[in-house]
């Protein structure tokens, strides 16, 4: 029999602050973490804006260890530490063997790679620092989390572009549901704010132009004047746990992961499809054994690109029909930026906290309405809601991997909307 999966710990290091409380307070206030980039290369960027994290690794790690950690691993380790502490997770040796780590990332240790190229090609260095491979490898963050917390179960890194951490969390959900693991630290981490990565993204012509009046308002999901995405950095890690195990140990259950849908556009390397996105949403509902009417809230992929937002709107309409107009949809990337491989994990945290607190984050900067994006995007500001118990979080990706997660509040009523049958 499939097991239920509880969320018992939440950790987040984001452009909106460290820890879930700072993060959600900023979301609720509609505060943007996007700002002009303070970097020596900023003048060479067409649009020098990003959602950076105020973070000093030396405050968290002793120097010998810090020298072995790319920024993406540092962010991930701090988020994991928060998650484990908030879950009050105590594992004996047997439990550690059934506890794993699933992390999504796109670039892995991109700063290390960028620094290495700079040294080798620009400065003519004869050699690279000895830990270059160990810092740059995409599985470094997951590996270090496993080492630091003594987790001996499956340790996997998922890379499906912007849906990476939705896949990490969804695959972790499946492992626990099916009894292959009891506890998994699942999430994502990304640190893409280096010169090489930003120039590569700039070349794709998908980056938002800087809002001349207010750089913090440059990302405008679902608005007619949206001009693209804004990259951000950060990490979010959840403790996912077998529901019965969590209940027996008296854990504070923060929410439940109910479903996960995975589809592929198989059409174009960047252009999304309505059918592919809609299929992932339907598969998530199916895996949760929920009808579409069960969904009270959607955290959209909502990147602020022309292609995504119109496609996602059409896909939501295809799945929910006329009810699509009644579902409040939040696009929080306007505030925390697009965190690539960490994006879905950050947005699932936003979604879980929205259900827990009964407050839906707003989609900021949505002033000019787009006739192709005509749903309820919570544009007026944070919205207090009663009875919102089940929500969907969408993540779609270059390459076409669409991943959708469904979560529920911990204390929701008895199967009011739980079963299709």
């Amino acid at each position, binding site marked *: 029999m499939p097991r239920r999966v509880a969320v018992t710990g939440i950790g987040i290091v984001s452009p909106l602050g460290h820890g879930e409380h700072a993060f959600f307070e900023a979301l609720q206030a509609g505060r943007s973490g996007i700002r002009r980039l303070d970097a020596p290369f900023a003048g060479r960027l067409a649009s020098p804006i990003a959602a950076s994290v105020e973070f000093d690794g030396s405050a968290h790690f*002793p*120097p*010998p260890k810090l*020298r*072995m950690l790319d920024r993406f691993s540092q962010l991930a380790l701090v988020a994991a530490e928060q998650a484990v502490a908030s879950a009050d997770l105590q594992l004996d040796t047997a439990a550690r063997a059934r506890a794993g780590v699933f992390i999504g990332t796109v670039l892995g240790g991109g700063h290390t790679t960028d620094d290495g190229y700079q040294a080798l090609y620009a400065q003519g260095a004869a050699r690279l*620092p*000895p*830990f270059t491979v*160990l810092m740059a490898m995409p599985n470094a963050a997951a590996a270090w989390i496993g080492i630091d917390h003594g987790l001996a179960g499956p340790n996997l890194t998922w890379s499906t572009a912007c849906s990476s951490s939705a896949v990490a969390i969804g695959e972790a959900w499946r492992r626990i549901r099916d009894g292959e693991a009891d506890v998994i630290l699942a999430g994502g981490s990304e640190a893409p704010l280096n010169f090489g990565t930003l120039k590569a993204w700039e070349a794709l012509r998908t980056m938002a132009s800087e809002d001349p009046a207010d750089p913090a308002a440059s990302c405008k999901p679902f608005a007619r004047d949206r001009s693209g995405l804004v990259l951000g950095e950060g990490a979010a890690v959840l403790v996912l746990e077998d529901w019965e195990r969590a209940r027996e140990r008296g854990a504070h259950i923060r929410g439940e992961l109910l479903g996960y849908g995975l589809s592929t556009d198989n059409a174009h390397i960047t252009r999304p499809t309505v059918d592919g996105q809609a299929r992932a949403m339907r598969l998530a509902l199916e895996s949760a054994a929920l009808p579409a009417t069960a969904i009270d809230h959607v955290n959209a992929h909502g990147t602020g690109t022309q292609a995504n937002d119109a496609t996602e709107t059409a896909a939501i309409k295809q799945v929910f029909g006329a009810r699509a107009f009644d579902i409040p949809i939040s696009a929080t990337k306007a505030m925390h930026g697009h965190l690539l491989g960490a994006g879905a994990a950050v947005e699932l945290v936003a979604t879980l906290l929205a259900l827990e607190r009964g407050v839906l984050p707003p989609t900021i900067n949505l002033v000019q309405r787009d006739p192709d994006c005509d749903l309820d995007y919570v544009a007026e500001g944070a919205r207090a809601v009663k009875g919102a118990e089940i929500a969907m979080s969408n993540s779609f990706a270059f390459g076409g991997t669409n991943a959708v997660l469904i979560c529920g509040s911990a204390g929701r009523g008895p199967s009011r909307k739980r079963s299709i049958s």
Partner: protein
Amino acid sequence: MKPQDMPTFDVLREVMATDHGLAPESLTPDTLLSELAIDSLALIELIFTLEDRFKVVAGNVPADLPTLGSVADYIDGLRAAGAAAADTDVPAS
């Protein structure tokens, strides 16, 4: 004084203090790397730093470097080889 002119062990002690937060006066040639939690990776990093300081080039790090003294001896060997190579590199005219 440039590092190249300093005794190897003095520089090694300074690097250990700076990079690993160890008290220099507690470090002797007989101090075991294992006592300092210097594992194989940390040793590679240490040799890398000493290569920079002494402008020498190490190959693969030997397996038998159990103490700070043996590390200093290894670097001394590289320094001596480097000095000998520099002598033979002097142009004839």
